[in-house]
C-alpha cells in the first residue's frame, strides 16, 4: 500500500474472519539454555551457573573435586577446621551508590566465610586491570578495601596484579580468597534445614542490585537507594552468642533471596514457604522494581543474611539480630515444611501461593 492511498481507517486494523487461531495450540518460545559458548547468564548465580558447575566443572575436575555446598568449603587441617572461599568481582560500574568494587570484594568474601560460622582471618586480593585504568580509581578501590578489611577485622595478607590489553577487560576486576577458623561446636550448612524450622532475614532486601542497576548504562535512573554492602561476621557472632542452633546461614547475593532459598530447599530436601507480606522491602526498591518489572526476591543483596533456626529458638535469635546494627530490621519471613521438598513456595499478598523457581540467568528489565 502506498503512502498516498492510506487514510485513517487503515491504521485501525479490522477483524478478519479468515484468520482463525486456536488458543489451545499456542506455544511460547522458552529461552535457550544450551549454549556452546559462555553467555552472561552463566555468571548470574541462577540455574545456568548451577548447570555449568554440575555439567562442566565437576565432571572436568573428576576425583579431584570434593565440593562443599556452602558459601565456603570447610576443610580439616591438623585437627583444626578451616573455612576457605574465593570470589571474583566484575561489577559494572566500578563505583556505584553506597560503595565500589573494593568494599564488595572484601565484604563478599568475609560474608562467605561468616556464613559457615567461621571467624574470618585472612584474605588474598588479586587484581586484573585493564590497560589505561586511572591510578586514581585503583587507589580509591584499594583504600576502600583497606577500610573494609579493618572494619571486618581481617588481614589482607597476599595479592597479585595482572594487566590486560586495553579493550580486553573492563577497568578493574578483583578476586579475593579468604580463610577463617571454625570452632569445634559449629555446624552450619545449607543441608541442615528441617521441617518446622523458621526462616529469618536480617533486613531489607534488594538494595545492592537496585543501586548498581540505577547507575548502569542504558537503564540508569535517579534513586536514593544505596548498596547495602557490609561485613556480616559480627552479626553472626552475635547470633551465635545466643547458643541457639543456627542450622543454615546464607547471604543472598546474586539471584537474590529466591536463589538462596531455592538452594537451601534443594540441599536440605525440605520445602520452604516464604510469606511475601513479611518481607522487608524498602519503598524505593519496590518502586524501582515496579518501574523495571523486576521481583525484589530476585534482586542482589550484599549485606544481608538468611538464617534457618529451630522454631523454638527463633524468637531468641531474632531478638539478638535486632540488637545488632546489621540486623535492626530482621524479620521472620517463612518456614520450612515437609511437603514439596526442594521447592520454594511464596504466599502472595492476597493469600494465594506460587512456586518461585531459581532464576534462569540475569535479571533483565522487561516491557511486558
Amino acid at each position, binding site marked *: 500500500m502506498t503512502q498516498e492511498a492510506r487514510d485513517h481507517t487503515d491504521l485501525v486494523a479490522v477483524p478478519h474472519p479468515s484468520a482463525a487461531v486456536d488458543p489451545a495450540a499456542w506455544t511460547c518460545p522458552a529461552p535457550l539454555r544450551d549454549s556452546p559458548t559462555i553467555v552472561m547468564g552463566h555468571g548470574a548465580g541462577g540455574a545456568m551457573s548451577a548447570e555449568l558447575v554440575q555439567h562442566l566443572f565437576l565432571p572436568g575436575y573428576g576425583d579431584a573435586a570434593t565440593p562443599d555446598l556452602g558459601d565456603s568449603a570447610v576443610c580439616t587441617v591438623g585437627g583444626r577446621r578451616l573455612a576457605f572461599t574465593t570470589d571474583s568481582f566484575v561489577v559494572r560500574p566500578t563505583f556505584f551508590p553506597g560503595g565500589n568494587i573494593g568494599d564488595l570484594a572484601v565484604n563478599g568474601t568475609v560474608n562467605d566465610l561468616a556464613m559457615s560460622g567461621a571467624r574470618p582471618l585472612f584474605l588474598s586480593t588479586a587484581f586484573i586491570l585493564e590497560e589505561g585504568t586511572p591510578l586514581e580509581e585503583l587507589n580509591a578501590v584499594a583504600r576502600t578495601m583497606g577500610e573494609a578489611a579493618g572494619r571486618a577485622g581481617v588481614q589482607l595478607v597476599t595479592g597479585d596484579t595482572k594487566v590486560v590489553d586495553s579493550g580486553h577487560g573492563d577497568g578493574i576486576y578483583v578476586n579475593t580468597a579468604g580463610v577463617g577458623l571454625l570452632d569445634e561446636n559449629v555446624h552450619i550448612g545449607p543441608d541442615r534445614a528441617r521441617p518446622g524450622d523458621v526462616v529469618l532475614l536480617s533486613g531489607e532486601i534488594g538494595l545492592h542490585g537496585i543501586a548498581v542497576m540505577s547507575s548502569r548504562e542504558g537503564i540508569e535512573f535517579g534513586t536514593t537507594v544505596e548498596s547495602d554492602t557490609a561485613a556480616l561476621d559480627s552479626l553472626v557472632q552475635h547470633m551465635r552468642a545466643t547458643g541457639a542452633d543456627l542450622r543454615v546461614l546464607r547471604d543472598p547475593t546474586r539471584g537474590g533471596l529466591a536463589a538462596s532459598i531455592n538452594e537451601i530447599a534443594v540441599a536440605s530436601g525440605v520445602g520452604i514457604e516464604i*510469606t511475601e507480606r*513479611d518481607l522487608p522491602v524498602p519503598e524505593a526498591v519496590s*518502586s*524501582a522494581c515496579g518501574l523495571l518489572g523486576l521481583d525484589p526476591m530476585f534482586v542482589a543483596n550484599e549485606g544481608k543474611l538468611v538464617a534457618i533456626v529451630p522454631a523454638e529458638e527463633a524468637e531468641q535469635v531474632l531478638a539478638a539480630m535486632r540488637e545488632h546494627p546489621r540486623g535492626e530490621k530482621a524479620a521472620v519471613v517463612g518456614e520450612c515444611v515437609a511437603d514439596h521438598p526442594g521447592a520454594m513456595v511464596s*504466599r502472595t499478598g*492476597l*493469600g*494465594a*501461593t506460587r512456586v518461585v523457581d531459581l532464576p534462569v540467568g540475569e535479571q533483565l528489565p522487561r516491557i511486558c
Partner: protein
Amino acid sequence: MCLAVPGKVVRLREEDGTRMAEVDFGGALKDVCLQYVPEVSLGEYVIVHVGFAIQKLDEASARETLANFEELGLLEEEFGDQLAQAARQAGVEEPRQR
C-alpha cells in the same frame, strides 16, 4: 505486554524541541518524554511506558474506583473470612495472619 507505571511529574524541560520531564516513581526518578500528553503540568501523574508518558492519570477517577471497591462489601466487614473461604475452595491454605 506493556509494563506501564504511574509517576508524578516533578520537573519540566525542553530538549531538542521535545517536551521532557523528570518523573518520580515512588523514589525512582526517570527522564520521560511528555510529547504525547501536552496537557500535563507539574505535580500531575502520568502513565509511563518505556520512557514515554502514554496517558495522564486521572486522579479523581482513581479515587472513585477505590471508593467503589470500598462500598462493594459494606455488608461483609469480615473480609478475612471470605478470603479464607475463597482460598479453601481453591484448595490452598488459609491466608496466614501474623
